[in-house]
């Protein structure tokens, strides 16, 4: 196996824009997003893949960015919470989370919203059980989850409505 250099420079694609970045090669995607690209909206609660706070989308799939090396992400589409809003307007998931109490302290919120987005992109008609299942890997200590599930349901309905128009 070829030696990996200490520092690498590569071009990531983040929230639909090219993001050239140089970083220490051992860094996780989480660390590169937060420390080298200043995208601190993605949080960490364990850095061991246990809590879901660092969930981002890579090629549309939810991944725990603390378990992914940034090196592996070259050429892939990375989506984070910062890219979700439509200009100045909140994405229906964001609006529903804040209007229905799906976000209290807000720390798990970016991760769980991204996990929910992946679900709704894949399955716009997700049932309540499917929503719970898709967000079961995202721990939240404030809400007791019920208002999170409701928020995803409302956002799903709104997104379906948008598609019909």
């Amino acid at each position: 196996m070829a030696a990996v250099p200490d520092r690498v420079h590569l071009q990531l694609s983040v929230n639909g824009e090219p993001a050239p970045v140089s970083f220490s090669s051992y860094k996780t995607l989480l660390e590169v997003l937060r420390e080298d690209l200043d995208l601190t909206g993605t949080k960490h609660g364990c850095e061991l893949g246990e809590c879901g706070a660092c969930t981002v989308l890579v090629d549309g799939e939810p991944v725990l960015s603390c378990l992914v090396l940034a090196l592996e992400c070259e050429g892939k589409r990375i989506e984070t919470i910062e890219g979700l809003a439509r200009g100045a307007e909140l994405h229906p998931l964001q609006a529903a989370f804040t209007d229905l109490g799906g976000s209290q302290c807000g720390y798990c919120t970016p991760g769980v919203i991204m996990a929910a987005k992946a679900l709704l992109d894949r399955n716009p008609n997700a049932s309540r059980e499917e929503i719970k299942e898709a967000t079961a890997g995202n721990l939240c200590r404030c809400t007791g989850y019920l208002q999170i599930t409701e928020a995803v349901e409302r956002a799903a309905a709104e997104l379906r409505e948008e598609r019909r128009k």
Partner: protein
Amino acid sequence: MKKTRLEVVGKARRRVDGRAKVTGHLKFADDLSAPRMLHCKLLRSPHPHALVESIDTSKAEKHPGVHLVLTKKDFPVPFGIMPVSIDEFPLTDHARHVGDPVAAVIAVDEQTADEALRLIQIRFSPLRTISDPEDALKNPDPRIHDYGEQGNIHRNQSYEFGDVDEALAKADHVFEDLFFYQGNTHLPMEEQATLALVDGDGKLLVQSSTQNPHYLHRQLARVLQLSAAKVRVIATPNGGGFGGKCDPANHEMVVAKAALVLGRPVKIGLTREEVFYQHRGRHPVLMKMRTGVTRDGKLTGMHLQTLLDGGGYGSHGPASTFYTGVLTPVTYELPRFKFEACRTFTNKPACGPKRGHGTPQPRFGQEVQLDKIAEKLGKDPAELRLGMINKPNSLTANWLRIGSIGLEQCIREVVARSKWKDRFRKQPEGKGLGLACSSYMCGAGLPIYWNKLPHSGVQLLVDRSGQVTVYCGATEIGQGSDDVLASIVAEVLGIDTDMIRCVTGDTGITPVDLGSYSSRVTIMMGNAAMEAAEKVRLQLAEAAAEQLEVIPTELLFSNGKVVHAGSSKSMSFLEAIQFAESKFGTLGSVGSYAPPKPPGKYKGAGVGPSPAYSFSACVVEAEVDPKTGWIHVPKIWIAHDIGRTINPVLAQGQVIGSVYMGLSEALMEEQAFRRLPEKLSQALVHKMPSMLEYKSLTSLDMPDVDVALIEQSEEMRDPNCPFGAKEVGQGPLLPVMPALANAIYDAVGVRIDEIPVTPDKVLRALELKNSGKNPRVGPEHFPSVPYPEPVFVATPQEGGDGKETKKEEKKRAAAAVV
């Protein structure tokens, strides 16, 4: 003029800090960085109890990229949240638990700091490990601390309100039960982080995930020997607190010191494992409860004994010890009450305040015992409780003044909604319902350090742009304190919350508020905010009235306008500001709040009093699989006496979140310890310092929750509360654990007298039941604790004056009543 209908309070609204949270804009402590920032890592003790004999940091200091290594010698001054327990050094030479910090490295990055930690050479001299309270009672030596009551007893106290022996002797039945409540931890999603730097003005700036910036401010000044005026603490929005970020912490002191020494920004972010060592969570408590009851279901007296496992430091322990008893008489009429409590030091991470602080444990015991009492007396548990609720505006046996009480409505609500009468004791084997109630305070009546200053201050700035800026030291920990602040000011001024900017939790620019603990924020900050807003409204009204040629008191502030009630004359809020600013000059006001003086006068009467108390009732539905002991909870009904709801979205969230945390504690959460094998060190280590192993409920485990927010009618509203609003962040957690245990009994007829209630315990109890033995799993004995002679205080009902009575007068006082 008073508005007949509220426009902001009680309406579901997007919280003022909501947008920042869903867009990723909100900056938590670890999201902060600064030019030339360095990183700090702590070296933590691998031993549960050891002295540092020698420490050699020379190799670490020479490691490339290392800027500073700190040890105990750099920190001669100790700290602690309570003045009676100043027992921690930022870095110690006497490790009191595995994970106690002994050295720190500050380096260019975390990786380098971590490498350098391994180069520090330490010789430890291990001491005997004290593993639990019984061990602590048996082994006064070696002492974990050189202060405290004696040996390894940190706090030991005894109070008797009325002659309890006599009350129990006169009872028709005396129930004696032992209960155990295992410790658990807050597990906030955000791991603690702190950034310290010397600001452009030469002063120290510490930005930290703390619930209590004011207390941290004081302790930083103490440890660093700086004038507090040269230290500024900003509480960053907390990614969950639950009490875990109340204590000033070692890591905060260390990075502050390092920033001062190096003149560069220094940051630390704890790992999840370290958060388990910082802990300050729920105390494990063993309880013995002897309760006298009349045959028609009235309590005659209670003798409660508690034994707390405090861990390695004092923390909030002196208060926690009181709280395992003092709020017990708040829920039901309890004419006499004896309460003995002992907190021991052990070689584990320090326990402290967690949501409900010290009260969930005795609440669990009392509510399970009431279930047993109801069965014995042949009464319905709901009816039994309805017959013994405290009266509004009464004094408890231990001299706590209770204002409004909405508990009766709470019980009736959950009984009706859960169809209790049709289902309790009537469901097939394996299915059950359990009921429990509780009460909690709305803010501690006394501050943590003795002073006569306000508990909360609010400052308002209003200017010609129309914006209203509210400054307050209160801390947003996710509970919505900024939203409460904005709502109250908006309501008084008749404007929308989006006209208001909240600046909070910054000791450099906001008036002091004691912090986000003891469910104090809505009441104390709320009252201060009302006072400030009403002062500004008076100024605006005077200026507006002059222009409109009406009497100021006839003006109404509503929907962004200042309206004259008797005519159609009005002006916009903005115009009123501009007239007022030209009339009075720059506009602004302050408000402050201090709670009423507690009625009790005896030593120790300061813990328990509160401006108001909230009440809750809960019914849990449980299904138990008799083959596996597996517990399924399909639904929970909860009613909470909130007085008045400020924002229903947030209030519902607090109730559901409390139910979640309570159920998670009831079923699975444990801060448990184990011994390493002999061939290793045999050290007492945390069983599972990770989020995967420390079990908590997920979205898939959460039951359906039916929430009823019980509001008081206008005339019954608690006058101590702003708009009548009580706390909602902690109280609703309390009844969940006992309601679950009671539901298990209704389902399969076994008593689990300890928390958590796990399938293996249920299975063990079922085996006992099937073999004809007492179907109970719980503690079997209560050790002999050297409680002191009680402080005797005559109760208000028996002619007491709130002061301690001399021992020899005790009998006379009791005799006089008979």
